């Protein structure tokens, strides 16, 4: 009993001293609570469907950020991982009768393998070369899909895949909990030593090599990690939509992932996730003006970029929080002195 009380008090202290002092942390907690409690208020299947798809794409956008944002290896073919994950999960489920909880991780492993396969030639390329080359891989794979229609279903894709779970609400909880968990894992990875090396590779690869770090290994690690998470989102998509078609490999999907991530602000993980949660429902909402939908979407992206070229969430965070010049700890913008070292904030 005392132990429970102790942990309860500890939680209370952490919430009061670490969470409530910063608006961005409060927002994250509210975001978690909102997603977890949403089905208690509404069980509208359409609304839940939008949130499920948003969560799936949030994993995808965050995994792009893990690779391209952190290590600076601009990947314009992220749909490859998504498509490989979706197709592998679908084929395993349909041909080998593996249930979703087995086929999705196996599909993600297939995506890791594809990440290694494309990572090895791409390691020698940098910057724009890399971006333009990675764009090619999903297209080559689409060609293969069309060339073997008996195995891959060709233009129609593979349909008749097992449901993720039996009802919409359990689908919702599976996907949302997975999304929150995976994004937290990604955020933790980028916060660890590996993440610091990823940062350093983006800033100056030669210097990192000179410091005795095998950058090749870390770049391959980034490709496989990103491929794993993107593969999971592909598998979830295939099982939720119950179809894996060539649309999962489209160029426009690769572009959309980049738009989401850069719109939210790269090198953050939370930026791309937040951007998907703004842009994807926005696109759904714009269905009421069907003809102007994509036009307005592109217009919004373009306008926001013009004023916030670093991404929406970087800009917002800088507005509501200040960094202490002495101890580098973040404070609410309304404070005049730092909450830890009491140095004056300007």
């Amino acid at each position, binding site marked *: 009993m005392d132990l429970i009380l102790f942990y309860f008090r500890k939680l209370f202290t952490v919430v009061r001293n670490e969470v409530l002092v910063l608006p961005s942390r409060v927002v994250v907690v509210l975001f978690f609570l909102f997603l977890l409690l949403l089905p208690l208020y509404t069980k509208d299947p359409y609304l839940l469907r939008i949130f499920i798809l948003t969560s799936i794409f949030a994993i995808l956008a965050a995994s792009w950020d893990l690779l391209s944002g952190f290590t600076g290896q601009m990947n314009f073919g992220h749909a490859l991982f998504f498509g490989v994950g979706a197709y592998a999960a679908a084929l395993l489920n349909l041909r080998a009768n593996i249930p979703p909880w087995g086929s999705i991780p196996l599909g993600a492993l297939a995506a890791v393998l594809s990440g290694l396969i494309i990572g090895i030639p791409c390691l*020698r390329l940098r910057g724009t*070369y890399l971006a*333009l*080359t990675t764009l090619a891989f999903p297209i080559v794979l689409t060609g293969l899909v069309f060339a073997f229609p008996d195995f891959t279903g060709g233009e129609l894709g593979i349909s008749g895949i097992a449901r993720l779970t039996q009802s919409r609400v359990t689908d919702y909880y599976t996907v949302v909990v997975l999304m929150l968990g995976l994004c937290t894992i990604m955020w933790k990875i980028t916060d660890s030593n590996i993440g610091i090396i990823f940062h350093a590779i983006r800033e100056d690869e030669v210097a990192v090599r000179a410091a005795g770090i095998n950058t090749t290994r870390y770049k391959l690690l980034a490709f496989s990690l990103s491929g794993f998470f993107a593969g999971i989102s592909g598998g979830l998509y295939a099982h939720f939509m119950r179809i894996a078609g060539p649309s999962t490999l489209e160029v426009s999907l690769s572009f959309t992932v980049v738009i989401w991530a850069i719109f939210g602000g790269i090198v953050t993980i939370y930026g791309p996730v937040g951007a998907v949660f703004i842009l994807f429902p926005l696109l759904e909402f714009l269905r009421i003006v069907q003809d102007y939908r994509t036009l307005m979407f592109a217009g919004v*992206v*373009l306008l926001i970029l013009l004023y916030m070229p670093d991404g929406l969430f970087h800009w917002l965070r800088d507005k509501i929080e200040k960094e202490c010049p002495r101890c580098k700890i973040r404070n609410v913008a309304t404070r005049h002195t730092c909450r830890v070292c009491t140095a004056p904030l300007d």
Partner: protein
Amino acid sequence: MALVIDIIIGGLINGSTFALLAIGFSLIFGVARIVNFAHTAFYMLAAYCIYVATQTMGLHAVWGMLAAIVLVTLLGMVSYKALINPIREHEGAVLIATIALAMIFQEIMSLIFTGTFLSVPALIKGFFIILGVKVFYQQLLTFCAALLVMAALWVFLMRTNLGLAIRSTAQDREVANLMGINEAQVAMITMGLSVGLAAFTGAVVVPLTILEPQMWTPPLIMMMAVVVLGGLGSLKGSFIGAYILGFAEALVVFLAPMGAYLKGPVALSIMILVLLIRPEGLFGVSFEEER
């Protein structure tokens, strides 16, 4: 034999289109380090411009071409000034700004022309026959015009002061600035030149293709493959790479059973294979020093 001629003609036409597009794309990348995903969207706009001028307003095709090139070049320069220049320091933002721009153009065109397939009559009608293969005058015209424009561009870049300024800015922006070259102005002019080339390509190719709002994506992919294959920023590389991939595409279309599906993947596989052997492309300079 007829098949061989067909392949040669197809390869030359494809190659010239890709070469014109890739050179324009390379130019603006070299000078301003902008990866312009909207490049082929300007090509599409020019094609629609000609459709409007000839079919709706009933003008002669030559006036349509001129109007298309001038209008699209102006539009390109305006969108550069208004949308890309303010965020040029942020590479990622520029990338998706150009993607968004291309999407906007595509959507506006599909709102006006409703996504139906349109076509434009040839500038010169008729054909002649070599070894039993019909060669349309329009195909010959497209090929010759492309070669002529590329030659003119070569002379412009190599023999004039402005060309020298463009080449030196591409080599080193800061030093070019120190030598008294107005870098912002050169970037602006290059953007106009690059978009103008895209518009010209659209103008000469439009009678040979079908107009639809999505027509910008297939050439975009091929153009990027050409640029990477030839080496970024290398005009010679773009030229040779364009004909390699143009012929590869024609070969696949005429010889492989699933040609239409496979032409893109085959060309891109060639690009990937070349990159495995030479990571900087056929004629690219290694960017190893650039950090």
